[in-house]
């Protein structure tokens, strides 16, 4: 039970879809209870810790993540992030800015779901990963690099952080861990990520708890344990004559 008035944010003990909200809460120094549910080990990967509580919390749509804010109980990671954003005045100063923030949040969410589809892939993982890293991800990164260049601000919408920045940083950081590439073609994105890591209110959390937490659940082919970015040197990247033909990934409708 939380102390009166304290937020409770419930999720697996991973970064997944809730880390943007955790980052926002740490940045704003908002006290909250980080309720963590552990996934059991192989071979069962038991979700009992969550399943036994799932229907006892009074959630209308029992799911992870959830947020309890007084008598308001929310699920859906983006609804949670935007609610916290509104509470902490990080959803823009005008209606146009709010919509830009929501668009960026939704856009980054699409990328994180694409990443999930790769990371949890049991069959053909290497081929699917290759397609993601060589096609899907560059398309997204180029759009963000162009966006940051076009608007020419420190953060996505201006010189102040907004909810969109917590979402974007986290989700491209997860892609960074899978990608093992230099991203030198996206200098503006690299600068953005470097500056985010230096935000004083977040440095300690990012270097500590955040880094030690896996990005995905234990059943994932990639990211089920905490990983570090390991950059391949460009000169070592030689064509592999035995590479599997990448499986085609359907474009979004």
């Amino acid at each position, binding site marked *: 039970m939380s102390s009166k008035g304290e937020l409770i944010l419930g999720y697996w003990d991973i970064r997944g879809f809730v880390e943007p909200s955790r980052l926002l809460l740490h940045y704003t120094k908002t006290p909250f209870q980080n309720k963590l549910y552990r996934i059991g080990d192989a071979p069962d990967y038991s979700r009992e810790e969550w399943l036994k509580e799932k229907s006892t919390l009074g959630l209308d*749509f029992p799911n992870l993540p959830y947020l309890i804010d007084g008598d*308001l109980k929310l699920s859906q990671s983006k609804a949670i992030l935007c609610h916290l954003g509104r509470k902490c005045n990080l959803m823009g100063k005008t209606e146009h800015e709010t919509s830009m923030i929501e668009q960026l949040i939704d856009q980054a969410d699409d990328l994180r779901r694409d990443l999930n589809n790769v990371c949890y892939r049991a069959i053909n993982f290497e081929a699917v990963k290759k397609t993601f890293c060589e096609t899907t991800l560059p398309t997204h990164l180029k759009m963000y690099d162009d966006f940051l260049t076009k608007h020419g601000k420190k953060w996505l919408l201006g010189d102040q952080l907004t909810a969109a920045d917590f979402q974007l940083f986290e989700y491209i950081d997860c892609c960074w861990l899978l990608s093992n590439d230099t991203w030198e073609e996206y200098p503006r994105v690299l600068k953005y990520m470097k500056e985010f890591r230096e935000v004083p209110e977040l440095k300690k959390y990012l270097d500590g708890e955040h880094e030690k937490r896996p990005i995905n659940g234990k059943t994932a082919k990639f990211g089920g344990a905490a990983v570090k970015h390991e950059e391949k040197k460009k000169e070592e990247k030689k064509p592999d004559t035995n590479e599997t033909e990448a499986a085609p990934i359907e474009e979004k409708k």
Partner: protein
Amino acid sequence: MCNIYTLMAQSKGQLTLGYWAIRGLAEPSRLLLHYTKTPYNDEFYVQGDAPEYSRDEWFSKKSKLGLDFPNLPYLFDGDIKLTQSKTILCYLARKYHLMGKNEREEAVISMIIDQSHDLRSELNGVCYHPKEDFATDKQQFIETKLTEQLKLFEDFLKKTGKKWSCSDDITAADFQLFEYIDSCLMLDESIIDKYSHLKNFMKHFREIPELENYLKQEHAQRPLNNKVAIFGGTVIPRNKA
């Protein structure tokens, strides 16, 4: 380059909503626009026929519209250009005061919008890329995911006890919830019979005076999904209005 109608619409200060000539993910926004009697231009993109199902009508314009994240649907409103269906719906809702009266209402509306979007995405999976075959996937979807979600929405409506899903006034959540539940019911209209609150909600929505005509005409004549879909790529006759 936009077509001449879009350019005309833009010069009149009219909104333009660009999407495939299907209901898909843009229909909640169309419903909201019709409800608020907002003049707007529907910029339709038509997928080609079998066997190629060409999307060139869209791809040929995709990078020329000045969108930061080129995608369908998109919305032009003056110099505002947006993508992402939920962002567009919420933008329009804020413009026409349909996003709740306070922070708490807005949060619940956002949650309902996201929750019903998840359901529509699952339906898309069944209609476009069944894991086994369509008939098997359809049955499984109805018996598991759809049943589970309809029960949650039913209990939510019952608990909230308001005229509409989130309040006594219609909100963005209602356009989204109606359209996406109705999309699922195209698989089997009788599914809704078990859920009295949802059934009432759907009935009341269809009786909204500002929407009656649109729902019976244009909306009813628009396919649910794109031509390439295994289900819903052509107009499906309804049992009931």
